[in-house]
């Protein structure tokens, strides 16, 4: 760590000046009010366009209204954040900001402060989530953009993109150069608003070092492509099937179509008719009321399987034959000539 870092001091002075003159919460309420006026104006235009049947104008104003509603939401969130802050006016002194910047040299492998382009960047150590190597990242903060929604970028220095979505996702929570902040969002805004730059970089790093499987652009176990649940081969976005019973992913070769309903199933969930061996899902299989065999629709009639049906028919015919003979004999016997 250098004893005196002229660049860090210059940056600290400028950052403090910028933050100390940042807009108070009352100013962001003014922005919210102005945005609401735009929304109301667009809503009025839309009503007018719809009432007069101006389709093209309607479409245009609808798009404008959607955009201004987005702006309104952001403005409302900004006001909410500034009001929730324990002390909105609390800003670190230039000395504290300087100490933050100088401490970065001990915390990170590489630190760069460029006063001219108003950039502070640090390089993290290589990020590894579970067994997935993602390489080091560069966190680049633009201190002249503190008012922006994303005044920083996260750049993969040895990108290991997820294979199924092109080169865009370089971390489960980074798309392009944008970190999806999740839990870190409020912390980062608060740190930047108060000039706690050391905290800012540490929070971004800790977020990069954390995997949230419930909300990832691409899950770690699908990083190298998704795998077929049956044969474990890679499955692309095309030619994949989701089993209709267990929802697992199966490849084109392993997918089995039920002959009864046409649904797609994995090998684990697919059954076969015990009579004709035809592929059939659980829903399409019926149990024979006589022999309890599981049969497909083709092999199942009148609550019994075809074999049992045939056996029944044969037995019935035989029975009928026997009955017929039994009826004839007495008759014949009865009609037998009796000697006088």
């Amino acid at each position, binding site marked *: 760590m250098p004893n005196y870092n002229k660049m860090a001091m210059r940056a600290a002075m400028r950052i403090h000046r910028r933050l100390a003159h940042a807009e108070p919460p009352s100013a962001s309420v003014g922005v919210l009010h102005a945005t609401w006026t735009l929304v109301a104006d667009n809503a009025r235009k839309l009503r007018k366009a719809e009432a007069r049947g101006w389709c093209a104008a309607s479409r245009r104003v609808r798009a404008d209204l959607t955009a201004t509603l987005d702006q309104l939401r952001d403005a409302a969130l900004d006001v909410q954040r500034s009001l929730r802050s324990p002390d909105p006016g609390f800003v670190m002194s230039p000395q504290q900001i300087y100490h933050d910047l100088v401490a970065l040299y001990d915390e990170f492998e590489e630190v760069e402060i460029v006063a001219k382009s108003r950039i502070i960047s640090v390089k993290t150590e290589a990020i590894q989530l579970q067994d997935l190597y993602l390489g080091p990242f560069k966190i680049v903060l633009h201190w002249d953009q503190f008012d922006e929604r994303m005044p920083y970028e996260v750049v993969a220095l040895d990108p290991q993109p997820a294979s199924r979505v092109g080169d865009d996702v370089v971390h489960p929570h980074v798309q392009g150069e944008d970190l999806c902040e999740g*839990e870190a969002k409020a912390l980062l805004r608060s740190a930047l608003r108060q000039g706690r730059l050391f905290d800012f970089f540490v929070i971004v790093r800790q977020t990069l070092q954390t995997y949230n499987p419930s909300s990832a652009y691409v899950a770690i176990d699908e990083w190298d492509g998704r795998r077929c649940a049956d044969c474990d081969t890679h499955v692309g976005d095309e030619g994949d099937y989701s089993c209709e019973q267990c929802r697992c992913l199966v490849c084109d070769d392993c997918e089995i179509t039920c002959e009864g309903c046409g649904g797609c199933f994995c090998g684990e969930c697919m059954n076969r008719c015990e009579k004709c061996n035809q592929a059939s899902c659980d829903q399409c299989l019926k149990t024979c009321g006589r022999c309890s065999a599981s049969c497909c629709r083709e092999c199942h009639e009148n609550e019994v399987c075809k074999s049992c049906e045939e056996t029944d028919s044969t037995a019935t015919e035989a029975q009928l034959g026997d009955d017929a003979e039994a009826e004839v004999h007495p008759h014949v016997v009865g009609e037998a000539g009796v000697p006088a």
Partner: protein
Amino acid sequence: MKILLINNDGGGFADYIDVPEGTTANKLFAQRMKSANPHHYLIRVNRLPVAADQVLQDGDRMSITPTKIEGADRR
């Protein structure tokens, strides 16, 4: 004495607070974080890792940052 306490857990908190002389880093952590496990946090005094029994000094800056902060998949 006054110290600057920064709690980067939950919604975040940063302010100057009064603490009694002789307060240690782990004592203040326990007071502020209740039953939280200190192993799940980066606890720094003046931006440097500290021993749990380090006695805080007037004007110190103590920060508590979770080691795990969950990102998401949309901004």
